[in-house]
């Protein structure tokens, strides 16, 4: 998909990305079946072990099974990424269309808020939110969405303004349709496909941000595993057991790469701006 624009004939990279994501979801869903061991039971006598039949990917610094933690970690990263995408998409779509349709003071204030958020690195805003709210699934999702909604709101605002100026909306209004009807029947349906493609393209960066926050110790609280947290504790034992950092590192890299490839491919195939790329020179 990386080189083409068609969904019918995905490229090798596109197929690999889909395959990896399917494996990832399968691993996350079937974690209890795929790993007989618990992700939280500790065995301090068997710390930092190399892969063996007992522990296919070895054990970590507390003697926990790395395979189980990697599988359950896939659940966490999948759930957090999906929830944060959904929250920022819904919030951005609603605030953006409201801003575009209402105009006036609401539009002005929201515009200033968005400019301020865009002027700061997203990770800084997320850290600030998590510093005060404490760790947890909900704070993590909220902190990731704190800046991510702006991208959707901007697009939704422009699309809402464009739709509102269309003749068929004027006709609906003349026929007596109310604001809510126009919002639900005309504006949102026109904006949603574009926003969904945008969300697909943004999934990789949300996942990376989740891993980054977990790496800093701000992700879901223990004993839940997450790839970012596994990577961070793997870094502490890099000399004795490099595989502890390698397992989450490889998983994270391939997941982000797969999401990136897929998102870019979708955006190219379905995106509104199907401009030819200028790679000739």
């Amino acid at each position, binding site marked *: 998909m990386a080189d083409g624009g068609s969904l019918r004939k995905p490229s090798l990279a596109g197929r690999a990305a889909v395959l990896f994501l399917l494996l990832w979801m399968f691993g996350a869903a079937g974690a209890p079946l795929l790993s007989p061991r618990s992700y939280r039971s500790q065995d301090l006598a068997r710390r930092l072990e190399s892969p063996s039949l007992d522990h296919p990917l070895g054990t970590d610094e507390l003697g926990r099974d790395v395979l189980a933690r990697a599988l359950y970690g896939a659940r966490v990263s999948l759930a957090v990424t999906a929830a944060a995408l959904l929250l920022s998409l819904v919030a951005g779509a609603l605030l953006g269309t409201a801003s575009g349709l209402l105009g006036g003071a609401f539009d002005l204030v929201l515009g*200033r*808020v968005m*400019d*301020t958020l865009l*002027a*700061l*690195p997203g*990770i*800084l805003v997320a*850290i*600030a*939110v*998590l*510093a*005060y*709210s*404490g760790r947890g699934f909900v704070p993590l999702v909220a902190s990731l969405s704190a800046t991510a909604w702006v991208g959707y709101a901007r697009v939704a605002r422009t699309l809402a303004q464009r739709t509102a100026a269309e003749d068929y909306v004027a006709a609906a209004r003349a026929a007596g349709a109310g604001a809510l009807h126009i919002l639900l029947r005309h504006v949102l349906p026109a904006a949603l496909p574009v926003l969904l493609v945008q969300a697909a393209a943004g999934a*990789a960066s949300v996942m*990376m941000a989740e*891993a*980054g926050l977990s*790496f*800093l*110790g*701000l992700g879901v609280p223990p004993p839940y595993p997450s790839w*970012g947290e596994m*990577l*961070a504790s*793997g*870094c502490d034992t*890099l*000399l004795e057991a*490099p595989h502890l*950092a390698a397992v989450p*590192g490889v998983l*994270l*890299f391939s997941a*982000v*790469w797969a999401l*990136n490839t897929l998102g870019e491919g979708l955006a190219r195939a379905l995106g509104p701006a199907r401009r030819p790329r*200028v*790679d000739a*020179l």
Partner: protein
Amino acid sequence: MTQTLLKRLALFLPTTWAVVTAVFFLGRALPGDPGEILLGEGAAAEARLEWRRAEGLDRPLVVQYGRFLLGLARLDLGRSLRTGRPVARELGEAFPETLRLGTAALAFTVILAFPLALAASRSRGALGAGAAAFSSASLALPSFLLGPLLLLALAVEYPLFPVSGSDEPGALFLPALTLAVPSSAFLSRVLAAALREEAGRDYLTAARARGLGAQRAFLRHALPNALPSAVTVLGLQAGALLTGAIFAEKIFRWPGLGSLTLSAIAGRDYPVVQGAVILFAVVTLAATLLADLAAAALDPRGRGDG
């Protein structure tokens, strides 16, 4: 030029105010009683009330906000709950280390990005393809993945550089490189795109028609026109590099603002967290402002009113 300066300042000041205000209210709105942290959970209710009164936390929010702003103007950010020292001093000690790291990373970014962009936009052979492939791979390699890799390769397997800390010579190299690779990938993409766009313009054909060689026409005309957009991106990158330093500081145990922030969060030292977030934000905004001004000054198209 003066006009650009005023316009940018008019954007910078309200944004800074908005950030400072947001940080203040974020700290007051979310749960967590600093008195409890300072005095311990078992502290008597009277002692906690006494402390709140002494700190002015029993006053109306507006009064607290006013005092907070006045304090900020005098660089008074309160005292650390853990050490009792002024927050401004704690930040002042940590920030130069982060600035050192960030400056080195910015220098590495530029050193890496320009040859990459030139190769990607000028060469059609393996060199160009290699440069483009490096850029897109580095984009998928965040600092918290690249850092451990570099650490393992260049400090453990081949011990060319120290594993952690900031004292030994050469200690700066790995953390700065960790930050620079992803950001140079981004910068080189922007620069290469700008160069490609300029390379197709009529003025370049005109210059070539006048007999100017391809290389000279490119260096004299295309590069200066592509530069402003690269500088603007560099300003955005500078802010991102400083915040991204949190990751490099954690991986390489660099004693900077990022390490201070993380330990303050872990210790629920809210005054230090608040000060650090404000400092990060202000420096980021200032870097963007400076880059915008530099881009405006560099732009050959805007030289008329200079």
